[in-house]
């Protein structure tokens, strides 16, 4: 097997002189250092020895093997792969921000803190909540913060029997994993054939053990949960609280607010809705927002302003009921800065417009794909910012799967939609075009999907081998797990 790993390009005993801090340092016999021999490292780590150009070329070439928003349409359902404005990245990358130590005196971070404070205000208005903490570093951590706040709320009321979380079967995998991590047991609530939560079963499921429910609205089925008002009533009457998973907020900005729907706590995914870069799987930022009930429990730190208009971080002393700290410092501050810039660029009308066009694009694509011969997950419902296709029919007729279609799309220069999620729709693709794709790109996508359907009918075996045009063909992931090779070793 020929390898392109950087380690094979390395040579022994080469030092990239330009980057070494001090060439006069004698590392072997340094009289000034007082560290005794037995504490020092003798072995060599397998970091490569290369010139700057060699490294730059290696990683530039690697980058060219990626799909990305900047190079490809990325209709990845539930991930909101919209354009990441260059201005947000560039303006947040100024040295005044980048070189700021997290524990620097607040007087030297007023500019940074002003942005964070104003972002808090914007997020509260957007969601209809009254409290916020920016500290969670990703959606899943925001979820954990939310669930821990609900736990703290019940405990503070001496309501100790509430050990169970209700979670719809369509929910993101992080929801049940989070509830379990916070020490709760999980009860799944089924979805009815219209795609709404089954209210009858929900009514039977609540009781004195119910701590709360975790919901996404629009749901992961790409549908607005029409009974949300009723659900909130059932849960609140049973003494539980409602958690809102903000993954799909891009569908409803300026149209409906989780706070008004009856949710008590929620997280936002700023790397989705507020266009901060996904960076190949992180960093994210998952601020949590709450109503008055849960305000005393917000994770610290929270940015506040004193009587003189000076910004500062509120810590444990000022939020004594807080569930505590989630990160060593203040969360992913640099990402929050990008989100702030994005929000200011769009403004009140722009945010609303973003949701309108995101939903327009999805509904347009949904109608067009149905016309092209695909089966919709829910043909009698309005689409939101995303929608579901099911390949069940083609699976039966031609023995091709959602995976085959996804892989073939890559050949045509489109990133695949989310596959096999949500779990309850067989052979499904979850498609989310976002507002930043033009009608022209959407039409091209429809055309390509039509071609693939034709290929599926005429030469299904061909689809099984896709993709054909990328840097590698379909990968053997069974071998990857069986003959585990997760680190190169110099032999």
């Amino acid at each position, binding site marked *: 097997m020929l390898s392109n790993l950087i380690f094979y390009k390395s040579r022994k005993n080469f030092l990239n002189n330009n980057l070494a801090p001090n060439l006069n340092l004698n590392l072997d016999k340094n009289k000034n250092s007082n560290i005794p021999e037995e504490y020092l490292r003798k072995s060599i780590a397998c970091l490569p020895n290369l010139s700057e150009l060699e490294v730059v070329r290696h990683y530039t070439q690697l980058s060219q093997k990626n799909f990305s928003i900047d190079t490809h349409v990325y209709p990845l359902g539930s991930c909101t792969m919209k354009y990441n404005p260059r201005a947000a990245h560039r303006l947040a990358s100024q040295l005044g921000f980048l070189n700021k130590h997290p524990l620097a005196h607040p007087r030297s971070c007023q500019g940074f803190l002003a942005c964070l404070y104003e972002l808090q205000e914007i997020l509260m208005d957007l969601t209809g909540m009254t409290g916020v903490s920016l500290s969670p570093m990703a959606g899943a951590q925001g979820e954990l913060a939310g669930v821990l706040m609900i736990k703290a709320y019940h405990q503070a009321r001496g309501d100790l029997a509430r050990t169970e979380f209700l979670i719809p079967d369509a929910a993101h995998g992080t929801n049940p994993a989070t509830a379990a991590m916070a020490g709760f047991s999980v009860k799944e609530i089924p979805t009815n054939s219209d795609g709404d939560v089954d209210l009858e079963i929900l009514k039977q499921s609540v009781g004195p053990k119910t701590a709360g429910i975790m919901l996404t609205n629009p749901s992961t089925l790409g549908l607005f949960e029409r009974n949300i008002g009723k659900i909130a009533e059932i849960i609140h009457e049973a003494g539980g609280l409602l958690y809102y998973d903000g993954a799909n907020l891009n569908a409803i900005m300026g*149209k*409906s607010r989780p706070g008004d729907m009856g949710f008590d706590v929620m997280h936002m995914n700023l790397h989705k809705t507020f266009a901060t870069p996904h960076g190949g799987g992180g960093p994210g930022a998952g601020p949590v927002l709450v109503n008055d009930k849960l305000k005393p429990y917000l994770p610290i730190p929270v940015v506040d302003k004193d009587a003189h208009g000076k910004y500062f971080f509120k810590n444990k002393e000022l939020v004594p009921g807080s569930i505590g700290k989630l990160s060593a410092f203040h969360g992913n501050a640099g990402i929050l800065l990008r989100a702030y810039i994005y929000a200011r660029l769009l403004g009140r009308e722009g945010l609303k417009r973003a949701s309108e066009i995101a939903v327009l694009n999805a509904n347009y694509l949904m109608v067009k794909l149905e016309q092209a011969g695909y089966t919709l997950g829910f043909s009698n419902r309005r689409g939101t910012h995303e929608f579901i296709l099911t390949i069940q029919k083609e699976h039966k007729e031609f023995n091709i799967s959602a995976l085959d279609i996804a892989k073939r799309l890559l050949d045509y220069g489109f990133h695949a939609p989310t596959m096999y999620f949500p779990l309850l729709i067989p052979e499904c693709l979850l498609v989310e075009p976002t507002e930043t794709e033009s009608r022209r790109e959407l039409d091209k996508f429809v055309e390509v999907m039509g071609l693939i359907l034709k290929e599926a009918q005429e030469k299904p075996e061909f689809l099984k081998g896709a993709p054909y045009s990328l840097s590698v063909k379909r990968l053997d*992931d069974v071998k990857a797990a069986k003959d585990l090779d997760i680190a190169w070793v110099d032999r």
Partner: protein
Amino acid sequence: MPFIPHSQEDIASMLEVINLNNLEELFDEIPKNLRAEDFKNIPEGLTEQEISRLMLERAAQDGMDLNFIGAGAYQHHIPWAVWDIVSRGEIMTSYTPYQAEASQGNLQLIYEYQSMMASLMGLDCSNASLYDGASALAEAVLMAVRCDKNKSLENNLNGHVLVLGDLSPRYKEVLETLVTHQKIKISYLSSEQVQNLNNLKIWESLNINAVIIPQPSFLGDIQAVDDLVDWAHQENSNKKKSLVIGLVNPIAMSLLKPPGEWGNNKNLELNGVDIACGEGQSLGVPLSLGGPYFGFMCCKKNWVRQMPGRIVGRTVDLDGKEGFCLTLQAREQHIRRAKATSNICTNQGLLVAAGTIYMALMGFNGLKQVAMQCHLNALSLKNKLENLDQIKIISQGLFFHEFVIELPDFISASRVIEKMAEQNIQAGFNLGANQLLICSTEVHTPADHDRYVSALSYILQELQVERVLSQESVLC
């Protein structure tokens, strides 16, 4: 400016295709009583020129500090090539590599990261990263207890973890938030306490699932890690050994013995920690007021299936060509849901890219140079401060690039920090009362040290005069 490419005609013709009259009808499934009113606090949108002006002003307002704070986040020189490559759209705007064939660049990069990181730690395996150092430690604690329970086939969740050495108060707080819900108890011993192994005797009768050994400790001390690992590896009175978690600074591990080699056992196989973790920020990631950073986690190969977070494996494609994909996904939340090893869904991909490129540019020798220069700079600053009469150096043992000083007892650390900040010098981390934790790295020059020492000396005199005057005024 919502970055929308649609003309009015596009919108009209698309609405026609869906058979709607206007955009508002797209939202007709939202019940009337839940429709939002207009935003009250979100301002009107800005042009790019306007937001640029605002952000340039705010960055300028925050200015350029001469920084001597460490305490878990460290200022290093970042080669310009690092973020120039990381900022390429192909890396920055890509998603989690679920479609492996369309993500080979990121996947190979993460594989190379895992290789470099595992090797730097002297261990077999690394994951693709976690959120930050503190949350990586919390995940390591959960993992260690899981490993220990699996070994002894115990089913209860209760666990007990012992920290051997000074730990960041912030890390303690994060452990409390993330770990205590799983019924795991954590006990803390200071670096001073563990210097004498006799102080550990009382813990030998207890069932300790794992120990955490920070290197260097939060206060900068280089600890006698070999002896601590030997202690944890010996059987206690219940014939039980503890797992060992090394919490380390990755830059320091190019100079100091890496966690995979800790211990004095003649049989080298028996040495080494089970899990190493820590803050990856030092490796090419800017300070940026605390994030985004990345947490790293490495382990011995027998524990890999208990490790949280994404892992990339090397495999082949249909033609037998080298390729990379996510592997061991059966541990993760999108498959296991409530039974996953962790709820974490992301890694810190972009920061790992920076870390990998940083390590590749520096090479092992370059990294070692950085570590040595940090150490020498901290020593040199300490020596200069020793000459100030009012300052007492608390760190008497070995330290890496951070040390503790004590101010005269009538001067609080917070006062000095504030006064120094007025001169754009971040003086150090406030340890409470009159003690400061000071860090110097390779970015500092002798002139920077002189500026620090003279500013501090001036401020101490000023505060002393202030004190004398106030005493006189009392006497009058």
